[in-house]
């Protein structure tokens, strides 16, 4: 079953469309890599190696910038990327860490 889809040929991230378990073989640019972590549906992984400062491209459009590097197949989310517009927030930011 397809676990990752490419939305636009210019994208440097892939979207998870079926749950990923640790060790699943993920098809990314240039071959397959084992998943380092479990990733749920709707999340993103790097299509190829990304460096801090790189624009993240999804739907063929920039959706933010990397703040840390990511290997191909690595989860891309709030720990390694940020908005170029308005900072995103989590409940911990608003209500204090549980």
């Amino acid at each position, binding site marked *: 079953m397809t676990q990752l889809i490419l939305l636009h040929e210019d994208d440097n991230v892939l979207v998870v469309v079926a749950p990923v378990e640790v060790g699943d073989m993920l098809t990314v640019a240039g071959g397959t890599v084992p998943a380092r972590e479990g990733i749920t*549906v709707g999340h993103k992984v790097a299509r190829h190696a990304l460096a801090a400062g790189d624009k993240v491209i999804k739907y063929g459009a920039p959706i933010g910038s990397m703040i840390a590097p990511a290997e191909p197949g690595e989860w891309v989310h709030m720990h390694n990327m940020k908005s170029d517009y308005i900072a995103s927030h989590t409940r911990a930011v608003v209500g204090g860490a549980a």
Partner: protein
Amino acid sequence: MIEGYLRSDGRKGIRNVTIVAYLVECAHHVARRIVDKADDPDVHLVGFPGCYPNAYAAKVMEAIATHPNVGGVVLVSLGCESFNRERLRAVVEASGRPVELLVIQEVGGTAATTKAGLEAVERVRAGAAKTPRVPMAVEELVVATICGGSDGTSGITANPAVGRAFDRFVADGATCIFEETGELVGCETIMATRAITPELGREIEACVEKAERYYTTMGFGSFAPGNAEGGLTTQEEKSMGAYSKSGSSPISGIIKPGDLAPTGGLYLLDVVPDGEPRFGFPNISDNAEIVELIACGAHVTLFTTGRGSVVGSAISPVIKICANPETGRRLAADMDVNAGRILEGEATLAQVGDEIYDRVIAVASGERSVSEELGHREFILTYKAFEPVGPACLPTRVQPVLA
């Protein structure tokens, strides 16, 4: 075929709802008691909680009380609040709808007003029942869209599927409205290229820039923790997904809450207040946006969700389109359309788009949407301030000829 309820302004409704409207929070309980005791799925509670005057709230309440889906109105006032109840009553009366006004301080308190209100509902409902039924064309429909509880699947399945349905409705000559400029931050340049005039394109960019400034002052984007849990990382990523609800038709204009689109076609509803931020967040929750879409004449709202929203609305049916297959299984009993099938290879975007189109026609023809059937009748209206739209926002409007 759709059989509409013909109103005196020529618009047609797909429902014939009686509304009970409280004009200040102090009258909310009495209005709710009246609605509860009436125990009729077509008697809906709406209202405005504030005691201070607000031109926006007055305009939205007038638009709601004369919405084509509304057949009659019962107004419940405490008596001392600022809301101009006589003006609202006069507007409804002038529209040809039955209307009654109850002032709690004059009628004699909670129990007496509840009893009088129930009798008023009976009379208004009987009056509304006389509304003529006439054939209604698809081009007379106003279809709105909103997303709530978005996740990383929304922008791949449900949102572009709504976009496909929107393209079909626009091709039919119907009016389609998308909104939440705060969730279009990052899309302004692409969106401006779809405007029917360059001047409108500049207005679209300006209206998204206004949203970005406003949200920056508020300190939060239009981005909830659940969006992040569902795989969305940034405002602009959420925006790109949300934007796909608008489909690919040209954008005919920008309207503001309470405005009616002058023609068929695709319109952007600017929901972010004008001027310096004064009353807080533009829309404190999804239903505030749905109320504004309805105030722009929406007969039906297409609500896409990835995390799983359960809301509906007073006045106009909400149709739920679930983006995420896992949510679709967990909250199946709350969803009208399962767009998550696209991810699992069981349906194409075009097929789900057609299914959404057909669902709108069925609901417009009288079938209850799932949220309607479950009794969802949410309504929320708070303070805002708007300037009227400029001429460049509505290139399709016929300009008045000066004598």
